[in-house]
């Protein structure tokens, strides 16, 4: 399948996917939110059940589609559908969840094939660190990434800040840039 111009935002419930897409999208994010039930309701009133959708409009009429996957495991059949042929991936990890490193491993494994197909075009955003700064969390995230043989960007970000989401996307583009990868120039 040819590479589509789409970037996938994935991560657990409450990690900031919808907010991050909203921070940079040129359109109001098209969401499929529903009232949260069970344990999710403890974290947020509404949650994404199918996908979020935003767009970056480029010069010449080109578009890059931004898709946010649903965070709940029971909707994970959507993950594969949405990620097919994606140019890159943003995985957001909520530092306040009980096991953020376990979440990281879960999502890297779940999206392993499409990430590999994209040439490891993956960036990690660790969210909600403002009031809960474990100064070594990013070190441990980088250790887990190294163990998975992924030397990809891992940043502390606030999805509400456009500048932070911009840095994630610039890093993703740097990975996709043909001048930064010999294999891509071959």
């Amino acid at each position, binding site marked *: 399948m040819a590479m589509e111009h789409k970037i996938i935002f994935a991560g657990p419930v409450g990690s900031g996917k919808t907010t991050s897409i909203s921070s940079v999208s040129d359109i109001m994010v098209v969401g499929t939110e529903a009232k949260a039930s069970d344990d999710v309701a403890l974290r947020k009133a509404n949650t994404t059940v199918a996908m979020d959708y935003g767009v*970056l409009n480029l010069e010449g009429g080109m578009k890059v589609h931004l898709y946010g996957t649903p965070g709940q495991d029971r909707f994970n059949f959507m993950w594969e559908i949405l990620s097919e042929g994606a140019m890159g991936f943003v995985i957001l990890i909520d530092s306040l969840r009980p096991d953020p490193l376990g979440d990281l491993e879960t999502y890297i494994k779940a999206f392993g094939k499409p990430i590999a197909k994209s040439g490891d075009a993956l960036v990690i955003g660790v969210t909600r660190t403002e009031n809960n700064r474990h*100064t070594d969390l990013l070190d441990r995230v980088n250790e887990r990434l190294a163990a998975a043989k992924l030397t990809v960007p891992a940043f502390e970000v606030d999805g509400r800040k456009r500048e932070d989401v911009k840095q994630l996307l*610039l890093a993703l583009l740097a*990975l996709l*840039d043909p*001048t930064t*990868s010999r294999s891509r120039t071959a």
Partner: protein
Amino acid sequence: MLQDNSVNPLAGEKYFPPADYFLGLAQRILSSGVNTRIVLENRGEVSLFPARYEYSADIADMAEFFQTPAAQFKTSSLGPTEKPQLPKHVGELLWQAAFHASQGRLVEGISKYDVVQFRRWPNLPHLPKTANTARICALLTRHPMTIMLVHRQLGIDKEEVYSVYSAAHSAGIASMVSQNPQAVASDVPEAALEDTSGKTGLFRSLFSKISGL
């Protein structure tokens, strides 16, 4: 602000000695292991906690603070049980200090012909950076190469590469693969490099779009 014009005759490039700046002071305190408060009168202060590898800071103008001569800072010891109010990772402090002290120069002890690589990415949203810092990181996390070749491969000013590499080296995320080799396989002549600066329309448009957000 120091105007250090020391020149390494072997490489013909300008270098900066960390000892002339806050950077060297911080490195010495980290080696000593003693919790220390560093003050620059009316400009700000940093508290360093070496054992925790953390710091806290209150600085008005980062560039001015980290470009000030080391002799102007005053230090005082903090208690061994004191903790930072809002702890941050010391690696970030060292990146900031080296990036601002560099002013387009390489840190002393590094040659532009050293083959280097990055072990991981820096936490860029929290750090000072140049327009091409992410591209430099993407290249050096995947391909060990000389600092000079990074400048050629990416088609950017070597001073920009020097600042970013000096920051990464000081923050401990860069490593040297081989030092100042006579001939480096990866260091091909400039003319032999494929011109990949003309990125596809999509990438060029995306960079333009996201950079302008």
